[in-house]
């Protein structure tokens, strides 16, 4: 048996390794995606006051700090048994929509679009955001930087720092919005909406109008038929900040719907000896291995799964795009992994529209920013949608509010099994007997997990084709007969 090792695939927020086991004739038999690093952030939270946790967890990762801040903030509310005031909730959501706008713009233009606009097998020196701008024009590049920056400015305005956020306190927020600031946010949000619409048009023109790309998206080795998870509001519309977690099966039928504090009745975590990253699965179905289909316990929590799990979008323009997407693809649910990029743009439009809605809401400048706390702290769960999946924070405290135990299921952890399976399918579909493993081939394998926008390490979706890779080709005795690296 031959073995290909891709190690490291990560450098920043964790470390990962891919082992591809091949048969003697060169076909892929199995793939293991391993996370051999333990970060142990939950242990770090123990002994800290619960009201500090939402600030501490922003340092888990410099990429989605706002998500951890929101989940921890909501969990702290629950620990004290308090709901934030209406105005405070809107301030939080305003911050959070800006967080989604900046992250989704960065992912699409810097990580996803180069594969399609420049080409999946284009020279790696060109397959990046610089190459992308060369194709789509300087004006678009300027807008990418400008819109992303404006979203960051809104986060910094409300959160004190765009990354190390200090917005949330139990029952509310530290800072409100002044009228002059609100007017500025309105103008910025209008720009987000226009740019999101432009981005969807770009996707339509470049990907959907290209038969080869559309075939790759829909019929390539990138499909995975598993269940879909996402947070929804009372109308079953996509919601990033609040609501209930809904899971639909591979046919689109509701499997379960639960509140944050019920998550342990619905999700369990499996441990594999070869990875520190756990494998969550649907408890009521059970763990049936790395399998697809209705009997599988594996689910995904991604932009695509959020749309699959919902009945629609809560804003009008995003709803139009939602309907167009499913109409184009032949209905719901969709299991084509690369459609996550399209779904992410629909979400970008929703976040932009909702950002504008909130900025236009008269209550957003209300000084009523914190609810009174009068209960002894105990235990609480907070769930939000992170860009990379459903994010759960669960804390237990003593009567003084000191954390005694914590459990985090981060966005990417939900997708651990799905990523392993997507990698295997992509590798099996791409690396075959007689196929020369080139840089382009490696990039097409990378595309399978880059779509998930994973966060155990930023490097797993490093710039297309520039992710640090070492692939060892081994003979049946395990001897390296050829190495490729970049």
């Amino acid at each position, binding site marked *: 048996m031959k073995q290909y090792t891709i190690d490291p695939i990560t450098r920043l927020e964790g470390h990962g390794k891919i082992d591809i086991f091949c048969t003697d004739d060169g076909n892929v038999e199995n793939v293991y995606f391993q996370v051999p690093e333990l970060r142990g952030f939950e242990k770090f939270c123990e002994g800290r006051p619960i009201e500090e946790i939402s600030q501490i967890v922003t340092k888990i990762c410099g990429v989605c700090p706002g998500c951890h801040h929101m989940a921890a903030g909501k969990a702290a509310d629950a620990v004290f048994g308090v709901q934030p005031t209406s105005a405070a909730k809107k301030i939080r959501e305003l911050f959070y929509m800006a967080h989604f706008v900046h*992250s989704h713009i960065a992912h699409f233009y810097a990580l996803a679009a180069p594969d399609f606009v420049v080409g999946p097998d284009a020279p790696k020196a060109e397959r990046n955001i610089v190459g992308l701008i060369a194709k789509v024009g300087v004006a678009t590049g300027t807008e990418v930087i400008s819109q992303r920056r404006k979203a960051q400015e809104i986060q910094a305005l409300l959160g004190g720092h765009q990354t190390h956020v200090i917005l949330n306190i139990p029952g509310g927020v530290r800072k409100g919005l002044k009228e002059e600031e609100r007017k500025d946010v309105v103008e910025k949000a209008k720009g987000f909406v226009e740019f999101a619409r432009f981005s969807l048009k770009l996707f339509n023109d470049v990907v959907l109008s290209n038969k080869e790309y559309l075939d790759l998206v829909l019929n390539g080795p990138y499909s995975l038929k598993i269940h879909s998870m996402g947070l929804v509001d009372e109308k079953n519309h996509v919601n990033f900040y609040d609501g209930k977690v809904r899971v639909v099966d591979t046919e689109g039928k509701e499997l379960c719907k639960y509140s944050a504090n019920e998550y342990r009745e619905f999700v369990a975590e499996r441990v594999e000896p070869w990875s520190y990253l756990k494998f969550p699965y649907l408890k009521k179905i059970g763990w049936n291995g790395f399998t697809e289909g209705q009997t599988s316990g594996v689910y995904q929590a991604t932009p695509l799964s959020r749309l699959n799990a919902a009945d629609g979008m809560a804003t009008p323009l995003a709803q139009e795009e939602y309907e167009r997407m499913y109409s184009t693809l032949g209905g719901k649910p969709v299991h084509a992994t690369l459609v996550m990029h399209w779904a992410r743009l629909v979400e970008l439009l929703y976040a932009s529209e909702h950002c504008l809605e909130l900025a236009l809401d008269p209550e957003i400048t209300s000084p009523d920013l914190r609810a009174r706390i009068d209960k002894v702290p105990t235990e609480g769960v907070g769930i939000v949608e992170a860009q990379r999946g459903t994010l759960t924070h669960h804390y237990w405290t003593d009567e003084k509010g000191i954390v005694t135990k914590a459990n985090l299921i981060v966005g990417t952890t939900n997708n651990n099994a799905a990523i392993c399976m997507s990698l295997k399918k992509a590798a099996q579909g791409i690396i075959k007997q007689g196929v020369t493993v080139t840089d382009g081939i490696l990039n097409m394998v990378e595309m399978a997990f880059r779509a998930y926008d994973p966060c155990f390490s930023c490097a797993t979706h490093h710039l297309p084709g520039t992710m640090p890779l070492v692939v060892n080709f081994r003979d049946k005795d395990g001897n390296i007969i050829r190495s490729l690296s970049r």
Partner: protein
Amino acid sequence: MTCPGKTVFIGFGSTALKDDGLPAHLIGHLATDPRFNHVTFLTSPVGGLELIPLFSGHSCAVLLDTVKTGKAAPGEVSHVIYPDFNETLHLSSQHDASFEQTLALGKKLGIPLPEKIHILAVEIVDNLTLGEGMSPAITERFDAILSLVGDVLQAVGGRR
């Protein structure tokens, strides 16, 4: 060597990862030093595309990061001027763009970037353990590191 215009000093890292937080701790002192009243001090966990707006409006940038090569003594400060260095951990964001691609993008878009980019890298001991304090070796050398970095900043980013 002195910067002809406005200077921005950016420290990278996380204060929750032991020595990784050294730049932020140094900035806490440098920002109150009257020698550097004219310098803009910023902290950032990661670079990438985020650097473009941070650089904007400054003709000189000084970036302070930590390194763990194991080949230098803890606290040793290396000073390189772009582009005389290899790829780095924090100056790139693997969620969007590398340091060099960020600069290339800025130039392609016609965004005025600093004429000189100085990178200071401090050899550290532990950037993987979760904790707000620093390792004993770096804590012991903190004042010396602060002095070294301050001297470099005065030399490259001081007033004309």
